[in-house]
């Protein structure tokens, strides 16, 4: 039914900031370490802003080619959080 798994954990992220390009592609998370495991992120599927109260949050939907991940970057605290994932479906 709903395959989303909520995680809500802080993660280490390596992101590439491109010198050129529009806001949709200027910041691209490319690697994430979660629970000691390194995950190569191969696709930035969607980036959109949101807010948590007054705090600006950037939502990045990324994929490693198998699983989908929802990462959130808190622009005030400068932290990355893995909020949810959808694992590979049968």
């Amino acid at each position, binding site marked *: 039914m*709903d395959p989303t798994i909520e995680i809500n954990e802080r993660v280490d992220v390596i992101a590439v900031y491109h010198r050129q390009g529009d806001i949709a592609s200027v910041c691209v998370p490319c690697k994430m370490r979660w629970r000691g495991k390194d995950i190569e992120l191969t696709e930035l599927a969607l980036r959109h802003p*949101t807010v948590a109260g*007054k705090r600006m949050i950037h939502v990045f939907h990324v994929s490693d080619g198998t*699983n989908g991940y*929802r990462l959130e970057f808190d622009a005030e605290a400068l932290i990355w959080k893995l909020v949810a994932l959808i694992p590979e479906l049968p």
Partner: protein
Amino acid sequence: MKDYRLNTETPLIMHLDLNSAFASAEQQAWPNLRGRPMGVTNRISPECCVIAASYEAKALGIKVGVRRSEAMALCPDFILLETDPTKYTFMYLNLLRIMKSYSPNVKMKSIDEGIIDFHGLGKLTAHDLERIGLDIKEQMRRDVGKWMRLNVGIGPNRFLAKMAASLHKPDGLDVIDHKNVIDMYKSLELEDLTGIADAFGSRLRAHGIYTPLQFLEANDELLRRRVFKSINGLHWYERLRGYEVDDYETHLGMVGRQWVVKRSSNDDDYLRSCMHYLTETTGMKLRYRNVEARGVCVWVRFSMGGGWQDKKMYKSTFYTNQDIWERVSRLFDHRPKHMVVQMIGIYLYQLTPSTRSQMSMFDDVQKADYLTKAMDEINDFYGSFTVFAADTLTGKRNVKQKIPFGGTEYFELLLKRV
């Protein structure tokens, strides 16, 4: 060839429609859902409805409004996600920004479809509009994502532009003008026409009109006096020929809010708090539209079936949250309290333009106005429900922000508050 008195002007109206908008936005965000039957619902519950279905789901017969249990019976692998309004807001804002870059005459018909009117923007041909349509599709793919597909229809009036946008889903681009409109009518059924559903279809058939072409051939007198028995008949006569009759501002008749209770209950505190929360959002909508109300209606639907409603008209208008809640709570307290409630709603009617700019002779009225204005300003600046009635706290926790399907005014208000 028969003279149908068609509008021969260059088609300058463009209708844009995001295909399966919410489902596409989710498939854009989650690559492993692409190509799969999936949909979204406001809140997952055993009997929730699909409010948007992907093309793959639609191909299996899972359409908007289908219940979760029916969808699962049709496709056991069907995936259902809860709505994520921030994604749709992003998608909407991008579409609106792109549309406005081509013309100041842009009107959003709903969160996922809009119209661009190119009249008065220099000499444009249908070919120019086709190129613009392709550009808009490309920009949506670039700025939002490659899974965002857009149907574009171009026509001499809003009706034919919308018809054109529905011809080749998903991702189509069609132009309908006086040269090909007859061929289009020949290929369609009556109910394929936008605005003709079962009731109008039956009415047309009762007068010997079985096809869109026969509808076009019917004279205006027959349509006005016998089929529609109103000015509507004449409007259809013009509309089918490509003349504009749908470019008007709709009259605001009521504002309101309804909610399917998260846990069906007859707990008075819980229901009152949720109703109070709905009242505050309704007050917010009322003031955003710059109107005041004289009538209030409160209604309830019970889990066992059936419902209850009560309404009241007042001599003077009201618009503050306190005034609305005072009236709503008085009505709400009269409901049969032993019954378990499944759905609650409120609407305000008999709306008149706001008179708030006029000073009141009475001090307390003036104070209430200042307080409301100050609260609205704080909420505008810091976000919705920064300041709210303490009584609505339970409601605020339980009632989710809804996705508005009809007009976009409430949606624009939410965006302003964000």
